[in-house]
């Protein structure tokens, strides 16, 4: 068999032949062992590849992608409410994913601690184990890029305002801040799981073992440092989500403090 025949068989396996060429290829496959093997190999590879499900972006990645691209090429118009404008400004002109590498310290009610967290009265523990299917490692490089595009002081001011809103003591900038825009409550857990993995520099998404969502009383006494902050609108309610934790431990406790009202059922 010549190379020419091999290509003819490959074309046949690809469904590219008609008429006399197709008849000849069919005959070769039936009479020539090498041709039959060639046909089988092409067919098998085509079948294997065609059967592979298309990978898709997670909701977190989709949000990051849109923010980073759209804020670069088509910055949002200023016709938004002052508070939203503050969020958008904090998110920066290019990326909504921000890594602010700064010494993280908590003052006032928040003190650094290695033992995780304690929570005062008023919180209802909710299991929000994140769906591993939707989790992906965080793109630190995108954050690095964004870091250069946003003044640290803007981020710090934004975090302090969010902390004030949440009834927490003003804090230094977290290592990571994300604005995810409008999401529904069902997506929140996966977003938080991904963010927690990013904060912890983990190669795998972390399982969020415990989450505490604030009820009416919003005066928590917590220990730990603010590792991350998510700015979101959860089911239409402006929400700030603080990730508090200890980088040495592979777990993260989250506090959802949307202006001291629980946004998520």
């Amino acid at each position: 068999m010549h190379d020419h025949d091999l290509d003819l068989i490959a074309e046949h396996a690809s469904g590219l032949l008609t008429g006399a060429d197709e008849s000849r290829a069919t005959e070769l496959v039936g009479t020539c062992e090498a041709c039959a093997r060639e046909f089988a190999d092409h067919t098998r590879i085509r079948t294997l590849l065609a059967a592979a499900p298309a990978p898709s972006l997670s909701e977190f990645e989709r949000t990051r992608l849109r923010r980073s691209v759209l804020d670069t090429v088509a910055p949002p118009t200023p016709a938004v409410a002052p508070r939203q404008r503050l969020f958008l400004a904090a998110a920066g002109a290019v990326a909504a994913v921000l890594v602010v590498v700064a010494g993280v310290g908590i003052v006032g009610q928040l003190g650094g601690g290695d033992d995780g967290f304690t929570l005062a009265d008023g919180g209802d523990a909710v299991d929000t184990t994140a769906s591993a299917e939707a989790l992906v490692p965080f793109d630190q490089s995108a954050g690095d890029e964004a870091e250069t595009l946003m003044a640290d002081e803007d981020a710090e001011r934004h975090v302090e305002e969010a902390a004030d809103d949440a009834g927490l003591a003003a804090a230094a900038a977290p290592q990571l801040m994300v604005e995810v825009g409008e999401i529904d409550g069902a997506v929140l857990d996966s977003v938080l799981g991904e963010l927690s993995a990013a904060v912890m520099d983990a190669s795998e998404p972390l399982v969020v073992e415990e989450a505490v969502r604030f009820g009416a009383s919003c005066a928590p006494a917590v220990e730990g440092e603010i590792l991350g902050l998510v700015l979101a609108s959860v089911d239409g309610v402006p929400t700030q989500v603080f990730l508090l934790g200890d980088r040495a431990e592979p777990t993260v406790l989250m506090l959802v403090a949307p202006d001291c009202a629980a946004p998520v059922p």
Partner: protein
Amino acid sequence: MNEPDRDRDLMALAATGDRAAFTELMDRHEDMVFAVAMRMMRDREAAFDATQETFLTLFRKADRYSGESAVSTWLYRVATNTCLDLLRKQKRRRTEALPERHDEPDRSAGEPFESAEIRPDIEAALRSIPDDFRAAVVLSDIQGLSIAEIGAILGVPDGTVKSRVFRGRRLLAEKLGNLVDQPRRQRTDDA
């Protein structure tokens, strides 16, 4: 309005800086671009970077879109070229980063994709073939594009596309030889 016409209208609006048009274009095509990038690149983060770069390029050059080819074809072209560029840069960086007398293999190349969406052995085999072959095979056998479409995307004649697809498949068949032969041996054993 059919899909290509809608895409063209959106591109025209995007060229004027219309954010809503940008958003709708991304909504329509981001999964397709990401799927191509995932098959071309070595890991998910690199695929995300390539997807991001593809859309940035698309929107920055939206005013140059002539409308002669479908937006999806243009996007495939930008995505594929972006991936190939990033892969070339990765290779250069790996080569430059290797100290003398250090011949350690690229560990990341052997790691399975984090997604469990394609069998690891197939994924590894796909990553092992030359980039040009992989691009042709991905567009042909995974994305299901025609030889002519792939030729327009890659900017090569149809004959070259066929050659790359066929050679790419043969290499994959070699890499997956055990897998391919297994059913035959099984049948022999049964007999």
